[in-house]
């Protein structure tokens, strides 16, 4: 236990003035907290406001100091100009192809592995699970160079393969871990009932556990989407032709072309951030769940 010293203290006699003092103290404390939180929230939100405001300004209003906070004239055409200057529609399509393949890979294989680690007892399981956790700690960049050489030998450069195929093998240690934690939280009796009814272990996984795993599936799906949508280093290394670019690489290239057209750059950036924000507002619960599931209590 955390509390080590448990000395006896005199009984608390609650008198009226004391009550009043406690109430006031509490109110003051709350007011203080809200003030600090508000100031902090304003500071945290300013870059967003700045982003959106800049994205609606005409170029001549961008270069004014101190900056104006209301875009006047209001110029939504920035978005059209930015998003047709480079073929962002095609980039979006490419990104979505990668996202869909990643979702299939991760949701199927990491849940499959996770089930094996969670519910089947066999010799060597703990060893392999320790390896899962160990790979979690290995930085991506450590293996970046040799993986690049392997994939270029396989002729995978300028294809989506390096960004999709590796995920079909377990779908990432973190996701395996997450599914394992989730499956362990489901009641064992369900699996037993299945076994009595003659269900194979694969049947239990697919027909009993998976339908019960919607929260875990949703969480993993969201983080998989975010990883693919945000990924910069993977596409940077492997995608060469413009027609293969993802949104992230497209935006990075756009930045190097439009070095000073900050209004268009902000419009393109807003367009890339917006889906993530929308996803957050629709699936807020799963963002937090994923972090909690990741084993704070396991």
């Amino acid at each position, binding site marked *: 236990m*955390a*509390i*080590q010293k448990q000395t006896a*203290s005199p009984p608390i006699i609650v008198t009226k003035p004391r009550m009043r003092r406690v109430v006031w103290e509490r109110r003051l404390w*709350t007011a203080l*907290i*809200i003030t600090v*939180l*508000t100031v*902090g*929230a304003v500071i*945290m*939100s300013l*870059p*967003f406001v*700045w982003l959106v405001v800049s994205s609606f300004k005409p170029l001549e209003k961008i270069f*004014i100091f*101190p*900056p104006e906070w209301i875009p006047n004239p209001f110029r939504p055409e920035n978005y059209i100009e930015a998003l047709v200057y480079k073929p962002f529609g095609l980039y979006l399509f490419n990104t979505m192809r990668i996202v869909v393949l990643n979702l299939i890979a991760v949701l199927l294989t990491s849940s499959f*592995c996770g089930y094996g680690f969670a519910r*089947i*007892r*066999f010799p*060597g*399981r703990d060893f*392999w699970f320790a*390896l899962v956790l160990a790979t979690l*700690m*290995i*930085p991506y*960049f*450590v*293996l*970046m*160079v*040799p993986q*690049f050489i*392997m994939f270029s030998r396989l002729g995978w450069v300028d294809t989506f393969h390096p960004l999709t195929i*590796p995920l*079909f*093998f377990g779908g990432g240690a973190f996701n*395996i871990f997450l599914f394992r934690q989730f499956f362990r939280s489901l009641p064992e009796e369900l699996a037993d009932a299945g076994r009595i009814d003659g269900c194979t272990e694969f049947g239990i996984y697919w027909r009993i556990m998976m339908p019960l795993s919607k929260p875990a599936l949703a969480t993993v799906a969201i983080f998989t989407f975010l990883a693919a*949508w945000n990924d*910069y*280093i993977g596409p940077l290394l492997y995608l060469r032709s413009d027609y293969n670019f993802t949104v992230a690489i497209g*935006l*990075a290239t756009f930045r190097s072309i439009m070095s000073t057209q*900050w209004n268009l750059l*902000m419009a393109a*950036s807003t367009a*890339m*951030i917006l889906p*993530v924000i929308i996803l*957050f507002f629709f699936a*807020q619960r799963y963002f*937090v769940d994923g*972090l*909690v599931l990741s084993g*704070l*209590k396991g």
Partner: protein
Amino acid sequence: MTAAHWYQRFLPRTLAGRRTLIGYIFISPFILGFLLWFIIPAGVALWLTVHDWNLISPPKYVGAKHLVTMWEDDRFWKSLSVTTTYTLVSVPVGLVLGFGLALLLNTKVRGISFFRTAYYLPSIVPAVANAVLWAWIFNTEFGLANAALRFFGLPKIAWLQRPEWALPALILVALWGFGSGMVIYLAGLQGIPDVFYEAAEIDGAGRVAKLRHITIPLVSPVIFFNLIIGIIASFQVFTIARLVTNGGPQNATLVYVLYMYQNAFQNLKMGYAAALAWVLFFIVVALTLFVFKYVGSRVHYEDAQ
């Protein structure tokens, strides 16, 4: 022989044997992936480390040359010191900010979810969009950062052009994303049963005492988790450094993996880059072990049940 024969010959006869087989079938994707994407690349990396190779001309065996080169390579030492400074500032400050804000957000005040969102959202902004946004914020003539300085009557700073300001600028970008850690702390804090605090209050504990003797010990595993994740992540900072400053000015933001990337994919020194990767690996392992040893022993684990 038919398939059925093979089945009967090779399928384990005992229940335990059968369960082992099934278990290994379930984890086989991971085992295969581990061999294909970890063990084989590690072997390739080992081979690369003792070779000179630019992907075009045939590789040449050079032994420990890359290690010697590294020892005398000023840019290697510079990148190491940049990354270390970045980690030493951004990880502890991010940790304190995240934990502090989580404490404030863990109060029962109306509108808390609004605040939580405001602090968390920056951490999910895609890195590339983030880089473009902050390059504009740190613009010397018209940027938001200097507008803020002006608001407080301070002079303009050439954030991305001055070596002494470029790294602090990148650290500020990193700190804007402290919300991901904060949410984890918040989940940890919400897992602490109220009875602990009630018991402490009866014993006459004040706010500080409750924080010190209940809150911090009970969320210390979470702090530890965030510390490890934070160190590993900050040793891999890349996108922002590449897109905002590309290592400049005067290598002031030449973070380690950016230097590695430049060696591999701009100078095509695959062998040297692989050697750098090994060094990164050992640094991260050493740091993790160090943290486990000196911080991990102070982490308080509640007994299960």
